[in-house]
């Protein structure tokens, strides 16, 4: 985990990407990339959904709020959806959500949708690398700070906590 936060040691910003992959195509492709020993940027945390159509736009905004610098959605190619039309629903939501994000001052490339079939392990590698590099150029996503609800405990800053532990160890 600690190498994800190494911006302080080599001066390079390491973006955090949350990837939502559908069970039938893109997740299997990521699995294939792994079993094929492909090397690629390790910046994405993959969340498996049964279908890209399950992706609630709230998931994307929640990921951004919790510290993601970008969100990647992976689904089956048009016509290949295991549930017939889930990927088309994902596509419509994605296009409207991208417009909303632009309006909110967020670069639309921070949200990306890719069709990756189960056999396209190499495309997973390529998309992960491309996206990591692009978001690295954008820099961290800095949302407006959320006012702390007075009745909820302030959430400890995980990054600061990790950095403090690491400093103590060195």
């Amino acid at each position, binding site marked *: 985990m600690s190498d994800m936060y190494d911006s302080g040691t080599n001066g390079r910003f390491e973006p955090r990407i949350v990837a939502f992959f559908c069970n039938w195509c893109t997740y299997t492709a990521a699995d294939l990339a792994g079993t094929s020993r492909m090397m690629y940027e390790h910046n994405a945390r993959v969340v498996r959904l049964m279908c890209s159509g399950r992706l609630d*736009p709230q998931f994307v905004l929640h990921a951004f*709020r919790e510290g993601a610098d970008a969100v990647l959605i992976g689904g089956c190619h048009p016509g290949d959806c295991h549930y017939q*039309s889930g990927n088309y629903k994902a596509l419509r939501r994605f296009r409207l959500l991208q417009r909303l994000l632009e309006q909110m001052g967020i670069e639309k490339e921070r949200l990306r949708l890719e069709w990756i079939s189960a056999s396209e392990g190499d495309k997973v590698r390529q998309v992960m690398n491309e996206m990591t590099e692009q978001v690295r150029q954008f820099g961290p996503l800095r949302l*407006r700070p959320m*006012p702390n609800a*007075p009745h909820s405990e302030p959430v400890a800053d995980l990054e600061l906590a990790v950095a403090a532990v690491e400093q103590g160890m060195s």
Partner: protein
Amino acid sequence: MSKPRVGFYWCASCGGCEEAVVDLAEAVLDVVAAVDIVFWPVALDFKRSDVEAMRDGEMAVCFVNGAIRTSEQVEMAELMRRKSQFLIAFGSCAHSGGIPGMANFFSKESILQEVYHGVPSIANTDTVRPRPETKVTEGQLTLPSFADHVRTLDQTVPVDYYLPGCPPPVKLIVGAVKAILEGTLPPKGTVLAPNIALCDECPRKESKPDELLIREFKRPHQIQIDPQKCLLDQGLLCMGPATRSGCDAACINGNMPCTGCLGPTDGIRDYGAKALSSIASVLNSDDEKEIDTLLKAIVDPGGTFYRYSLPASLLHGTILHEERGGK
């Protein structure tokens, strides 16, 4: 036994919520007979000092409407919280930010720039802006400060219950007052309105096709609206599927689409994302280019989906690029 004491206060709001209390009509007499109104600046001549003189928790319940932006509103929200046993966020602005909350689409600087220098009707050659403190020969003048962002009431002080709506429907207000007087309030944190979507109580429910498929989004002024037919099916952006009911479909009965003032049902964290999701999914196209063309008819997605809830949303507002010195 003395009657329970009740207070009303307004922050960043339009006065419509106060109007909603007056809209209780004859029922307001029952309310006045059952409670003592001890603070209500818009209608009765009590002062802030009267509230400050109260014991903590002396008011049984206080209804606060309006969003929070100025330091004075923060002070008043804290004061009302301290002096009342139940604090109720009254109306969309206190609940989720409301119309004033849309100011979070802009930076504080751009708002001040526009209001005090930009608008064509203003003559402000000395480029004067309000300041929290100003020295004049007679002494020091003070004004409340203007915060960077708009907040909801529960982002400012702990809130016990929510009465949603712009303004809250009379039926819900009566229900809430009754529950307070009879001691039948639900668990704290509850939104005091039915937990079902507006479509469920919509008088046009029967005309909604089994599968909604929209080929073209339209705005109300562009078409003759059929007064019987499901508004979504007519291509209008009706927020009914994502919005809490409790208003007896007031806008629908006025032949206008729902704009979402009652906010989401329980369990939804971000109203706008959910409304966006339901609208996008009924679009009848699988082609990427065509989808973009059809979606262009939604000219302002942010203002459409976050009309009443931007401060309460996950993003809280737009990213302020200029305030962090470029990207």
